């Protein structure tokens, strides 16, 4: 399911891939251009903080990913029209970039 255009299979959580998805506005799962709304999968804590670690996805791709055996059972689906890509600051313990939905649907 997770494949980029040239057939390579990226780690959907890897920093480089996450950054590329955020800036190129492509789905972190299928690597095609994002649609509207944009879907994020996150744990209840991520939903509460409105800061997600997994890259943006199509709604269908996020639903598919949530159904895989490896999925975190606590993941919740959040839909938004847009998001901010937030790079980590020096004082952040968690050095992963986050996505902050800015227009929840």
């Amino acid at each position: 399911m997770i494949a980029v255009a040239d057939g390579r299979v990226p780690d959907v959580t890897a920093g480089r891939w996450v950054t590329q998805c955020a800036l190129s506005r492509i789905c972190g799962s299928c690597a095609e251009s994002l649609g509207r709304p944009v879907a994020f999968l996150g744990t209840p804590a991520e939903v509460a903080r409105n800061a997600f670690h997994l890259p943006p996805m199509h709604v269908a791709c996020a639903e598919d990913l949530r159904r895989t055996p490896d999925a975190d059972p606590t993941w919740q689906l959040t839909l938004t029209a847009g998001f901010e890509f937030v790079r980590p600051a020096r004082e952040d313990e968690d050095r992963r970039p986050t996505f902050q939905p800015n227009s929840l649907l």
Partner: protein
Amino acid sequence: MAISDVKEYTHLTEEEVEQIGRELDAIRAEIEDSRGAKDAAYINRLIKIQRGLAAAGRVTLLASSATGKAKKPAWVAGAALLGVAKILENMEIGHNVMHGQWDWMNDPEIHSSNWEWDTAQPAEQWKHSHNYIHHQFTNVLGYDNDIGYGILRMAREQKWHPVYLGQPIYNALLASLFQWGVALHDLDLERIRKGQKDPKEMKRQLRQIARKGRNQILKDYVVYPALSGKGWKSTLTANMTANLARNLWAYVIIFCGHFPDGALHFTEEEIEDETRSEWYLRQILGAANFNGGPLLHIMSGNLGFQIEHHLFPDLPSNRYADIAVRVRALCEKYDIPYTTGPLYQQYGQALRTIIKLSLPNSMTSSDQPPPMTEPPTPAHDRKRRSDDERPPRRRELGGWMRSAS
């Protein structure tokens, strides 16, 4: 001279750099909290104006063809209206919409996912080559493909070759055919030439470019001229002129963003373990603004505020003028260079660099402000990197991969 450590270059302490980051974060948060109906009205009004100008241009050309009256003035008016419409569409609308500056409005049309602009490069490829490669690796030698667009030598650290003697000519060709140069930008011709590009991906991209290019040609050089009947030639030349004007304008504005004196280049060491604040600092040092009135800034897609655009590429462009006042004050407070000047001066400096760097370093001198020191013409490998060769910004493992491993 390329910078390998922005902190050292700016003589700032780690705490000062982080404080600058916090102050820029505060500006960002303030704009995010305050964007709303006024901003939405701005972009909606601008799109309405742009479409009105395009329609007026097309109708003027069609009408003059049909009636045969006042042909010359109508041709001039039609081409001018169309040219301005194309410039607005590419610069202030398309470029900024595809950055996601207006996604927060949840508009079904004005959204980075849906917008396809009036130029030869497919939106999807632009979002990769510009939004990701250029904005993530801004002015990093070997990583940012916008440094010379793969055909010009724009940094003294780039190895000289006799082929660069023709640089003034390549530059003129690039300016005139800018939309086609940009269309091929994400293909990475250097990797194709060396046989390093994945053939499947290359074919996919070429198909996209061919489809988009064909539609652009059909629209401007077949359909509208055909609709003009006997006056087809007049419509065709007007469309060609409008496209040429847009190409030249876009080229000038883009070259003013990173090539005037004072906009610095960086080595790959700089982006290793870069924090958000260091990233901000690199954007400030690597970009250059130009001065002008509101109309000039709108016609330039607000890229006269290139520094602010690079700091906050996804904040609405109509806010850059206000942000610039605060960013400039911040730069003055910390004694950080803030490169700006009139448009003619900024482009003049970029053009001088193009001409100078057609020659080996030993025959010219650097125009970068002191304390620059002259590097020798290097034998350093500055080839374009593929996505795989670009370094990951962060090491991390998420929940999904943890359970998969």
